[in-house]
């Protein structure tokens, strides 16, 4: 079920401001790809172009192509609503729906289509998704309590459960651990390790150790100058990026001389 992603000559704009320019890269199915780079270089922007979340910001648009197994998700007969359902997303700050219970949160994406589902079916989806998110044991006694009552790390795993409940092809994560404590971070990293068996995962992180721990491939983005669009500097197997980068800017960044 996991798909490959090919981005070709992608430019992303906020109004007249070009935030990132000329990005081309490929992401293999069932792998973890990390986006690293200094703050403001456009990592989140590129990530959000992959499920067409970029365009929900007023006056934001993209040019170029994003191919999902060869299918252009910006094609004329593609429905962005379906794209977002097919490509799940986890945000920097855990954002469970504050008014919903834990189980309602998990099935929030499923119930959107208004189809009738039996309670047993929904229950089994809740359990499966929470198990996949390593959260089941901690919350199974209080599924009807508000999702906002959980700890930060639990909330983030709840958001992951919510994203995978609709069985997406790809999981996008934008700095999923940056608001969490170290123990919760480890739990999420373990989870990513398990999930990559089923999903293609793209993760933005500002933490280079994290990129090294969880990803097979790393893409390094950089900002050539103030007011200029961010660029993809290089993308390569994570080991090589950290041991032997081809670009000087990458070397500077990972050795902490910059950014």
């Amino acid at each position, binding site marked *: 079920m996991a798909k490959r992603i090919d981005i070709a000559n992608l430019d992303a704009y906020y109004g007249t401001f070009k935030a990132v320019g000329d990005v081309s890269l490929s992401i293999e199915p069932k792998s973890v790809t990390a986006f690293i780079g200094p703050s403001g270089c456009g990592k989140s922007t590129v990530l959000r172009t992959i499920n067409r*979340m970029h365009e929900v910001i*007023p006056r934001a648009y993209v040019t170029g192509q994003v191919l999902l197994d060869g299918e252009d998700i910006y094609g004329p007969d593609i429905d962005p*609503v379906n794209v*977002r359902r097919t490509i799940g997303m986890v945000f920097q700050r855990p*954002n469970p*729906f504050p*008014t919903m219970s834990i189980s309602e949160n998990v099935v929030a994406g499923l119930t*959107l289509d208004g189809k009738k589902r039996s309670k047993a079916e929904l229950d089994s989806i809740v359990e499966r998704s929470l198990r996949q998110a390593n959260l089941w044991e901690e919350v199974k006694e209080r599924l009807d309590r508000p999702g*906002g009552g959980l700890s930060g790390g639990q909330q983030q795993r709840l958001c992951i459960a*919510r994203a995978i409940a609709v069985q997406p092809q790809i999981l996008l994560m934008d700095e999923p651990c940056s608001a969490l404590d170290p123990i919760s971070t480890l739990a999420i990293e373990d989870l990513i390790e398990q999930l990559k068996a089923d999903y293609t995962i793209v993760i933005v992180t500002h933490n280079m150790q994290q990129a090294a721990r969880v990803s097979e491939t790393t893409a390094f983005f950089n900002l050539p100058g103030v007011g200029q669009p961010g660029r993809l500097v290089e993308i390569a197997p994570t080991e090589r990026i950290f041991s032997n980068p081809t670009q000087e800017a990458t070397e500077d960044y990972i050795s902490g001389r910059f950014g």
Partner: protein
Amino acid sequence: MSTTVEPATAGTAEPISIHGQAVRRGDRIFRGVSLFAGITILVIIGAIGIFLIWRAIPSLQANTANFFTTSAWFPDQTPNPVFGIAALTFGTLFTAAIAMVLGVPVGIGIALFIAQYADRRLASTLGFVTDLLAAVPSIIFGMWGLSFLTPHMEGLGQWLNDYLGFIPIFRNDLNQYSKSILIAGVVLAIMVLPTISALSREVLTQVPRSTIEASLALGATRWEMVRQAMFPFARPGMISAAMLGLGRALGETIAVALILSASNVINWHITEPGGNTFAANIALKWNEAGPIGLSALIASGLVLFAITLVVNTIARGIIARHAEFRESS
């Protein structure tokens, strides 16, 4: 006053030192004055209730009919005053109900339009325009309702009678469509729009961006996002907004006084002339009332005061609870 306070040191004439008596006195006086201002507000609300009760009692004692079940309004009739609030209650609740049925969806729609559907520059202009609606004095709404809206609503009244006349409230046996409860309700609906939309807009714009994006990222259409992420979050605020609008509709005086024909009868045919409300009745009967008549109007005002107090307290209670909940979470 207080003997333990050190006297101001000689030489420092300017009362700057923290321990200076002048300073203390200044602070005490200023604090006392502002406390007095705060207490005054509490006293006013209490005094409104007390004085209305006190001045209502003579007429209630003189009344020879049941105050709650009588529709007629002849308080100055001697020797046996007869008056009651049945028709007033009916008219007040019915006009307010029409105002709510029309005003709540439209008011929330405007709020949603400004908070989510319009682009930001347009939104702030539109917010200003709806606020302008709130600045129009109510007597002007009344005049407009009588001389502009009434002729334009005749067609609607006839249409309702012709096609929905099998529903009793829409039947019109008089073939007269002016000065009706329906027209008063429509004008009230327009008048409560700014109240409802202002507070709804405030809570709808407070919905966190992250909650909205969570819903969109799950593949919600815009409307599904509104229902999934925005409405549940904003619901307590929207309920309070509707209650505040209801409070305004219940107490509106001059617009209703101009539009209704002020007959104290209960008439379920809402497109026919007739009906009266607490507030309009007070304004219309005031100058022709004798001592018992004034007291009777005050008694009816007391009932209106109690009703609006309950409605507003509930509305504010909901807001306060919600604010506390949000601060603590």
